């Protein structure tokens, strides 16, 4: 079949509702002082929302394995970008200056 998996209306509305609830939670949580955890919670919620969109709205749950490879590649490249850049900036001066 070329139509692919057809998700039910109910599923799409459930995902939509979950995304709206998570949006409300992420706004609400900023009025509670959790210190550094505020950022962790905000990013955790954003990642959960992104995952819901990718899995259901973008049909990742029902798509070909090659598509999964592409998505994982994106994350892998992001990890390299962030890890190497931050590793560089936060280790500057750690070894002292060359030649001294």
């Amino acid at each position: 079949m070329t139509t692919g998996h057809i998700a039910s209306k109910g599923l799409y509305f459930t995902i939509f509702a979950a995304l709206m609830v998570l949006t409300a939670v992420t706004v609400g949580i900023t009025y509670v002082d959790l210190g550094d955890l505020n950022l962790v919670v905000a990013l955790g919620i954003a990642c959960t929302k992104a995952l819901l969109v990718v899995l259901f709205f973008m049909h990742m749950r029902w798509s070909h394995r090659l598509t999964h490879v592409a998505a994982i590649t994106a994350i892998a490249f992001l990890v390299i970008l962030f890890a190497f850049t931050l590793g560089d900036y936060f280790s500057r001066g750690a070894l002292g200056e060359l030649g001294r």
Partner: protein
Amino acid sequence: MASVDSSHVHHSALQHHFESLEQQKESSIFGMWLFLVTEVLFFGGMFMAYVLYRTWYPDAWLAASHHLDVTLGAVNTAVLIGSSLTMAMAVRAAQLGQRTAQVVFILATMFLGFVFLGIKAVEYSDKFAHHLVPGPNFRFEDATVARQAQIFFSVYFAMTGMHALHMVIGAGLLTWILIGAIKGRFTPEYHTPVELIGLYWHFVDIIWIFLFPLLYLVGHH
């Protein structure tokens, strides 16, 4: 192009170098995802800049972020998530061959996209009115972090601006599939453009899902 010279009976949408419509569609979806990988890296560079400057200037980031309107940001998040729902429903209508529903949902997606851009325009003009646009007219109440706050607003305009540009391009792409849908080009066998534009639209939604907490909800209020 249809393979007119073939002795087989082919679907008019099937290009000759593909075995079947299914293979053709899988290839298109894979290609779209590869494009989205490059888009992730494109926005990734800006997110990287954001992370670095935020760790360097946490105080300026907090002070500058409080100039953004959380309500407008939250409403826009809801609007965009709503447009993702209507987009998913448009793809579903295409899969089922429901032409009217397809047209209605594509129009709804475009409408919500324009609501988002309208709210964004209100926010941008407010930033201009309050001298919060980086440049010679930038003013910030706390002079000690003014230069660093300017970096926050540079990042803000770069990221939301690129995001808004993606929305405008998305509106153009939606217009294209709207015309196709009205003409009845899309069937349960062939509706790849609707599916691919859907992927693009959801991707743009995901970028905003990260931009909203990172720009509007720094620290606690």
